[in-house]
């Protein structure tokens, strides 16, 4: 029971991190970056392939690689698509996602690559007679730390202020001097950092990395940001959290029926969207035309 609750919270936290990464980029350029999945995947590959190095070194290297790929995406594809119909951008990101999956397949092979990343974080310990996995606790601690850091960045720094302003009204933000290219690059860079964090947590739990590793969590976080309210980062984080908690709870509650957990989740999503098309945190009028 305690373990189930911890699992639900940790999965929720994980999804909210992924959703934040998507939400940051959506905010500044109205792009639903489907290829965020491939940022998580490349981070996971890097973690596994550098597993023989000290953890700190491996982490730094992973963040650098992921941020590099994120900036490369922005520079080579999305920068040229700025201002076009969001539907076209979404489809382009879909295409980019497949390009990268195939590139990974060529580079790393179709079969899963694995290595023990931070093996000391596996296993479980006992508290008051209850057995609890170390990874769920680590996940929760890591997630809270990262969410707090993100919260500070977004709420208290000048970059965060510019991000919030640009998400609300990019045109006016530029009139005030917000540098569009830099800010969008910064958003992509941050989404890369978040993808690396997500990958770290995922890899601790499941170190079998295939070219499609980041796909599932990205699809579900995408669903999350839409139900949370795509207009704000808080909405994105909240939506991601809800999806994670619901999915984890469904897996526990449905027993043998857990293969249908996704169906129930998607039905719940439909219901939420019908009641609040702009998402749970919307103020009603923020309908995006995508």
């Amino acid at each position, binding site marked *: 029971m305690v373990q189930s609750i911890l699992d639900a919270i940790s999965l929720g936290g994980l999804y909210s991190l992924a959703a934040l990464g998507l939400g940051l980029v959506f905010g500044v350029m109205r792009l639903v970056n489907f290829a965020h999945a491939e940022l998580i995947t490349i981070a996971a590959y890097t973690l596994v392939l550098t597993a023989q190095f000290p953890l700190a070194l491996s982490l730094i290297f992973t963040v650098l690689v992921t941020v590099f790929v994120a900036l490369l995406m922005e520079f080579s594809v999305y920068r040229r698509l700025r201002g076009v119909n969001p539907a076209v951008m979404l489809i382009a990101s879909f295409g980019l996602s497949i390009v990268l999956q195939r590139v990974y397949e060529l580079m790393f092979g179709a079969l899963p690559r694995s290595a023990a990343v931070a093996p000391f974080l596996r296993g479980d310990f006992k508290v008051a007679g209850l057995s609890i996995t170390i990874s769920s606790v680590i996940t929760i601690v890591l997630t809270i730390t990262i969410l707090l850091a993100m919260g500070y960045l977004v709420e208290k720094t*000048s970059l965060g*202020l*510019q991000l*919030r*302003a640009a998400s*609300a*009204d990019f*045109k*006016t*933000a*530029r*009139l*005030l*001097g*917000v*540098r*569009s290219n830099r800010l969008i690059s910064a958003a992509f860079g941050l989404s890369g950092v978040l993808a690396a964090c997500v990958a770290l947590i995922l890899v601790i739990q499941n170190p079998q990395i295939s070219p499609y590793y980041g796909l599932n969590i990205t699809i579900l976080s995408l669903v999350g940001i839409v139900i949370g309210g795509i207009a*704000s980062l808080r909405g994105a984080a909240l939506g991601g959290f809800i999806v994670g908690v619901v999915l984890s709870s469904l897996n526990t509650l449905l027993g043998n029926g857990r293969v249908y957990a996704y169906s129930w989740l998607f039905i719940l999503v439909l219901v939420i969207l019908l009641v609040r098309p702009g998402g749970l945190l919307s103020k009603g009028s923020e309908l995006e035309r995508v």
Partner: protein
Amino acid sequence: MALLEVTNLVAGYGKVEVISDVSFTLEPGKSIGIVGPNGVGKSTLLQAIAGGIAPKGGSIIFDGKNIAGKKPEDIVRLGLSLVPEGRQIFSGLSVKENLALGLTGRRNKKGANEAILKMRELFPVLSTHENHQAGMLSGGQQQQLAIARALISEPKVLLLDEPSLGLAPTVITDVFERLQEIIGMGTAVVIVEQRANLVTSFAEKTIVIRDGKVQATLTPADAANSESLQRSYFGAGE
């Protein structure tokens, strides 16, 4: 030498040309009004000057440099600031945060605190509400915030797009008094207005735009003469 010199400007959206030939000059510390019927392209003109849209032709010389087609974030750093139509304050952010955003466009990163203090003196109401959401302010207060936000970058030229929009008459008077003070401090001002009499009596000269071109130039003396105002506004014979 003129601070801002717009010559044969052409501007519009997509393939549609809204402004086909507009020229005017503005000296440092002076004011100019731009009037004309609804939908004539006054906002398009300001957007083209401030970099919100790229002009299709003509030149915009500001402070000796041609700024036509530059990005808005670069133009504001050169010292030309726009208060867009409908104010466009960030209603979800606090008043303080809105003002802080104005700092982004400063050329000189020093003196930021002084600039904010100066704005608080000029618009005391912003101090009282600094931690409130900007969306909670009244229309007049929002307009003051939008002007203050644009002034924090210490522009040499301030462009205002319909500052009177949606405001009560007494509030309009108040806003224009502040503008007078701002001009007094050495900032040149370009005001676009729907209400011709308001700006014609205020600005040193006022140009009338119709059919994408400058149709007439008015002085405050013309403001008193409503007939000449109407004639230039709607064209002869109407």
